[in-house]
């Protein structure tokens, strides 16, 4: 992995607020043209990490390199940052706002005008161009906020919980755009506590828990390293079998099916045979990959 391929590099970065350590000895590398998921529960240190990357706050110890350099104004202009806490100027017209945010990234002129039109069209907001943002619905405002992040055509996009509160249609739309940006060679850091969303768009992930890194690597690798040791089961009866700790280490019941994590040493064939022997009527029995959520829980308990 050549150095130029790494867009963001953190080297043993720590940040304390008084007695509280928000980030401890964190090292990670975000590769160019990848979607990098920064994942973890609330309070794990995701937002602090991101704020250090965009230079809102500095690390107490450790180094951060962006595009191979220390942060400066020029580097800052190549970043698009959508924070979790975000808003718009209520009384400002949509186009004026977008122009303002572009100017703050040192981009102006005709270029911006055409980009504003392009993006508004792409997010189906063209007719709102000259409306004040207070007249827009919450979903529309969120899409405008997204445009403010990309209006200056940044090479690195940092999105903190970008999809929270979006309806399914707009969520799908934004997800497509994020993947398009990735195809266009942009690097994307994506932070969320919603593992299901991350699972669908991330190439690489970094799991944070209690200010520390639990795991970093590609999503593919981590999933295959866990193996297919989960089974989705829909059946009537056979409860005693699924509750047998020698076979199933963890059982999660959903609405009409259950997900069973196989115990060490047990295999799916044995489980299926036992279920049939117990007289259960089986509607579904499928080997599945562990979800990111399962992996996360496993990793966190493993570390503890």
């Amino acid at each position, binding site marked *: 992995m050549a150095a130029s391929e790494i867009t963001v590099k953190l080297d043993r970065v720590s940040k304390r607020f008084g007695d509280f350590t928000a980030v401890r000895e964190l090292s990670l590398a975000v590769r160019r043209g990848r979607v990098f998921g920064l994942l973890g529960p609330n309070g794990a240190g995701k937002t602090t990490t991101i704020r250090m990357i965009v230079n809102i706050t500095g690390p107490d110890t450790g180094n951060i390199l962006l595009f191979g350099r220390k942060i400066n104004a020029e580097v800052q202009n190549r970043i698009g940052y959508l924070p979790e*806490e975000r808003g718009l100027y209520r*009384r400002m017209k949509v186009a004026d706002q977008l122009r303002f945010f572009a100017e703050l990234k040192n981009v102006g002129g005709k270029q911006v005008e055409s980009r504003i039109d392009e993006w508004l069209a792409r997010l189906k907001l063209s007719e709102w161009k000259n409306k004040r943002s207070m007249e827009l619905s919450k979903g529309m405002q969120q899409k405008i906020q997204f445009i403010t992040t990309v209006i200056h055509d940044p090479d690195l996009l940092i999105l903190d919980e970008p999809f929270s509160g979006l309806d399914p249609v707009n969520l799908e739309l934004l997800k497509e755009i994020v993947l398009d940006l990735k195809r266009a060679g942009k690097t994307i850091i994506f932070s969320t506590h919603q593992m299901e969303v991350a699972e669908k768009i991330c190439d690489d992930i970094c799991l944070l828990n209690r200010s520390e890194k639990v795991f970093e690597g590609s999503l593919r690798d981590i999933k295959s390293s866990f193996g297919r040791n989960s089974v989705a089961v829909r059946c009537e009866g056979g409860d005693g079998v699924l509750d047998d700790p020698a076979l199933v280490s963890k059982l999660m019941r959903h609405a009409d099916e259950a997900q069973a994590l196989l115990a060490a040493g047990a295999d799916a064939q044995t489980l299926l045979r036992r279920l049939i022997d117990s007289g259960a009527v089986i509607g579904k029995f499928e080997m599945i990959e562990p979800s990111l959520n399962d992996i996360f829980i496993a990793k966190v308990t493993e570390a503890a």
Partner: protein
Amino acid sequence: MRKFLAVVKREYVQRVRAKMFIVSTVLLPLAMSLFGVVPAIILNMEGSRQRVAVVDRTGKMYGQLKQALSSEQVNQQSNSNDNDPRRSTGFGNFVLEEVNADNQSIEQLRANLDQRLRARQLEGYVILPPDFLEHGQAEFFNRNPGDLFSSRLLQSALNRAVREQRLIEAKVDSKTRQQLFRPVELQAVKIGDTGAERDSGGSFALVFGVGITMYLSILMYGQAILGAVIEEKETRIAEILFSSVKPFTLMMGKLVGVSLVALTQLAIWGLAFSAFALYGVGVLAGRGIRASIPTIPFSHYIYFGLFFLLGYFLYATIYALLGSMVTTVQEGGQLAMPVILILVISFYLFLPVSRSPDSSFSFWVSMLPLSAPVAMLVRIVTQTPPFWQIALSLLIGFGTVLLLMWIASRIYRVGMLMYGKRASIPEAWRWARQA
């Protein structure tokens, strides 16, 4: 620099475009001219002729009264710039008529005159009894006893007439009489380094004007600056901005942007006021009254401008600092009360400084940032201090502005990282150091 200008431009354009700005900019001069012009016009209109009959039973007062009344009216006109609208010419339009009282009884006379009054041929009549010169008691009958202005004018004219007549009877010649009534003049003369100069009254008025303008613009725009600083916190835009601009750039941009709005408004008002004043001077000149524009050294105008800006920015910066500590405009408004108090106190330092502009007290208050603008201006127009003192005062002042803005931007940044928390003073201090 481009980012700074972007912030300035946004603040400026958004505010100047707002309806509130346009309305208040237009309304104030309009209200000013309404309060200034309309009463005068109305009073002028109301001043219709007062036909007054005089029954002079002393036999020698009518002439004196007529003369006194006309000179009284001229007097009132030339004093019309002493701000009392009642004194405008309208109330002096007396038309006197002498009623011959020789062969009629007083009852007959009154019956006649009452009739004419009711027939609206007269507005009133005065009866001067034969012993008027001794006792000085007369009666004024009129349809409208509520018209105090007319009766007061009449009374003052009678006073004059009686005084004249008494002096004549005491055999005082006309030259001595004029001498006796000549008013005194007191002119304040400034002694500067170059010897005797003419008064500094005009300069004083300007210092006062600068102080008042400063005070008003702070009252009007302090809240706007507070609001501008808080806006990004309330709308949660701060974090997006901070990934693009430094907090200091943002804060300075806001301060300058809002201040340009204030200056724009002041300039518009200033132009309106000058036009109004020039028109007023023209009108007065048309009536033969000279209103001279006070002569002030050119350098003083530059100092007025500089110290006005200094005063404005100092107090505006304090509002920005408050804005960085609080989360809502209401909270900030409460904290702003002491600031206004300091502003008022610094304004009253006018008095002690003007009495002894050379004292060490005056020196120190003209160096302390918050009191410097008014105090130094007073010193400049009274006994201009050495240039280095003026320069030092400006340097300290503008240095303080930058320092306060720097502190404010640090508090702002840490405050933003800890959402929704209002900073206490010690916390704010800690934030400023740790950010």
